[in-house]
């Protein structure tokens, strides 16, 4: 139903390639030789049963886990391993399965925190708050306000996020990730624990982010309805291996996927 986004227009351009990644914790193999690509502007879902290695995969992309084997090519640059702050600086932002916000800070402050990497003036100038430093802050605040308006949360701008209901906290977290103006946005179960209406809202925001800012999105999600509705392509993991990759329709009918989800004995 949605209008062609920048996604489709720029289709075919690979933003991130995961090549042959293996990750083990001691003897436990979390990921085994996983490869897939994320194209510029698409919404890419990563699904799989519990313990399939989805969050581990995001953590590798994000630089939080160091894989024993394989490499990640982001924007044409190859990394065998990457520190989280390098990932952030190169344009990867993420949200977490369990909301990870600064609970006692307001919505606005949390979102401004997402701008940290974009601030160029040193602490000294920021404290003095004069000249270019003040201008810079005004610019950042403007961006933060755009996001607040975009996510329809002006009414909670000044409220400490710890006091907000869970659904709104999730939205603030998305806001903080957006504040980084990322090229790639990683969402770890953005709809977890939400009711139907909140899920619909969140789905709309994810689509809007993709459509409006052309942001490429990789998301982990358990709700199959949501995944099938909003994603362009789906990767299916099971026991750390990729078992399927393709459009939602194709993946849905894949016998391996059905087997994995129905829990056939291994």
């Amino acid at each position: 139903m949605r209008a062609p986004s920048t996604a489709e227009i720029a289709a075919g351009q690979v933003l991130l390639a995961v090549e042959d990644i293996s990750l083990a914790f001691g003897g436990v193999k979390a990921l085994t030789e996983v490869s897939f690509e994320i194209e510029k502007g698409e919404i890419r879902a990563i699904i799989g049963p519990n313990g399939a290695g989805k969050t581990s995969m995001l953590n590798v992309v994000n630089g939080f886990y160091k894989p024993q084997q394989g490499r990640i090519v982001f924007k044409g640059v190859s990394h065998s391993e990457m520190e989280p702050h390098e990932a952030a600086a190169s344009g990867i932002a993420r949200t977490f399965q369990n909301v990870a916000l600064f609970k006692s800070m307001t919505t606005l402050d949390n979102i401004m925190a997402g701008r940290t990497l974009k601030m160029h003036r040193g602490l000294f100038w920021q404290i003095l708050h004069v000249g270019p430093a003040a201008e810079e802050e005004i610019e950042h605040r403007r961006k933060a306000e755009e996001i607040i308006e975009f996510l329809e949360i002006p009414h909670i701008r000044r409220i400490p996020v710890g006091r907000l209901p869970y659904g709104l906290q999730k939205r603030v977290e998305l806001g903080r990730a957006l504040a980084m103006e990322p090229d790639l946005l990683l969402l770890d179960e953005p709809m977890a624990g939400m009711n139907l209406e909140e899920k619909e809202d969140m789905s709309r925001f994810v689509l809007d982010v993709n459509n409006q800012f052309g942001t490429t999105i990789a998301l982990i999600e358990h709700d199959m309805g949501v995944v099938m509705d909003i994603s362009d392509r789906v990767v299916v993991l099971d026991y750390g291996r990729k078992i399927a990759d393709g459009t939602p329709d194709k993946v849905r009918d894949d016998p391996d996927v059905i087997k994995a989800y129905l829990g056939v004995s291994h």
Partner: protein
Amino acid sequence: MRADFTANADTFPKLLLINAATRANRPANRLKDYGVWQTWTWLQVLEEVRSFALGLAELGIGRGDKVAIIGGNRPRLYWTICAAQSLGAIPVPIYQDSVAEEMSYVLAHAAAKVAVVENQEQVDKVLSIAERVPELSHIVYDEPRGMRDYDHTRLKSFEDVQALGHAAGKSKYLGDAWERKIAETKGADVAVILYTSGTTGNPKGVMLSFDNVMISSRNANQFDRLTDREEVIAYLPMAWVGDHIFSYAQSYLAGFCVNCPESPETVVENRREIGTTYAFAPPRIYENLLTLTMVRMEDASRLKRAMFHFFIGVARKWGENILNRERVPLHARLLYGLGEILVYGPLKNRFGLSRIRVAYTAGEAIGPEIFRFYRALGINLKQLYGQTEASVYVTAQPDGEIYADSVGKPSPEVEIKIADNGEVLFRSPGVFLGYYKDPQKTAETKTPDGWVHTGDAGFFDPKSGHLKIIDRSKDVGRLKDGTLFAPKYIENKLKFFPNIREAVALGDKSDFVCVMLNIDLVSVGSWAERNNVVYGSYQELAADPRVYDMVAKDVDAVNRALAEEGPMAGAQIKRFLILHKELDADDGELTRTMKVRRSFIAERYAPLVKALYDGSEEVDITTQVTFEDGRKGAISARVKIRDMPIYPPAGEAAPLEKKAA
């Protein structure tokens, strides 16, 4: 006082020219955007309106054309009203939450040529019905978000239209061409068409002339002594006549600033930031604020809670007298002053009502407790009664003459009479021209000599001379002896008591009035807990004689009040009973909006009604009920009936007034 330059202007565009000259740098509009209040002065508003008006002219809008306006309260949508009027075109604001069906009816009925809308949501809605509205040639939107991928052949952004106008202003409309167009507008022209959603049938387009709107608003400004220093917040639908008068007409006339909130959720916060001095809200807004406060106070520390309750007690006792400038003992004044510092001030600040001078409530009856609470805090809350057909003002309460249950005295230049059936009729300079394209309905509502039927029944209170509205006139009946019987009026009086949740009044074509009640399980339940009354169910509690005693006191209070009220004195409650089950929408006893369905209930509980009128002391009844899971069952009960004393009508004026009614 400065000279009133606006006295000779007879249309709003002319007023804009005057305001831009005499109050050039005073704020006219504010909008909170990106978390900051953006301000436009009258001079800036003039420039915005001029370029948009010329842009509309470029789109082919001219004299008599209709411009639909759909969206929330945004400065640009208010400017659209004035821009359209400056071209002799007629603005038609439409409720933004109306369903596509209703919107297409209004757009087609008004034959709107251009729709100016707020955002993508409204654009989508209008596009979805576009083929049913052939006259509509352009859609102009304010908020560009999400609009990038749309086909822009019929769509234009507000800026695009202004740019068109700006270019035209440099070539075609040199000099004062636009001002000359404005000079052509006249007071007798149609200024605006406001569609009112009737409860039945299609909405009717109420045509108001500049004279209607301006004279009513000018009178109201004088009545409440409004100046260009007022601050109001615009948050009620633009299609509603109240907002058109408060946030547009009165602002242009007095020159005060209209503030548009950031979003519907931030109104309270935005009101606090602005510090409104003049406000209007339906009763539910005041109720919500109060409930929120009470809930918050329950969570507060014990000291704060004790302080709150103590000073609210003081305010309830003396606040209204102080507000009405009556004589009050010194110690009360001191205590109230301390309360102002500790409790009332901070509370009013939270409500955003610290600087309020005049606040109105209207639309429906407000609970006297709620009404008095705000007045006790020193907020000048008043009631008014109005209609679209009257350009709002029919009656309003003058300062210092405030009653919780009246709607005030006739507004300046308004005449009121009460018809034989109790219906209120009025005649005023604000009376509408007619319903658009509907002379038949116009004739039904407006008599040839200018009297308008309100459809509401009411009477003048003999003591205060204030009008009281009792019910829709079609619902008002008569007892056998001819006494006026207004069921909703009696029911509302009962329901304002916390122990009574629902009430059903019977009496049309009968000898006397009876009521059937539901007790409020929360409030009576907590009473039972405090007094060690053991009960197992609603039914058991409702039948308890002590509960009957308690409720009888409330009914008695209603009777005493009715005795004081002239024509209503004959409709006192003679007998009552407490129903053995709670009225429920699932059983069809209430509508889904929780209004009692009187005739259905009378039929369903026929044995109870019969017993009320044949003098029995108690009666057995079995009732079918539907449980929440859809199963059906039956409740049997023995219901007791209580007789009540009737009071003689108070005062000499009462019988006279009865004759007049």
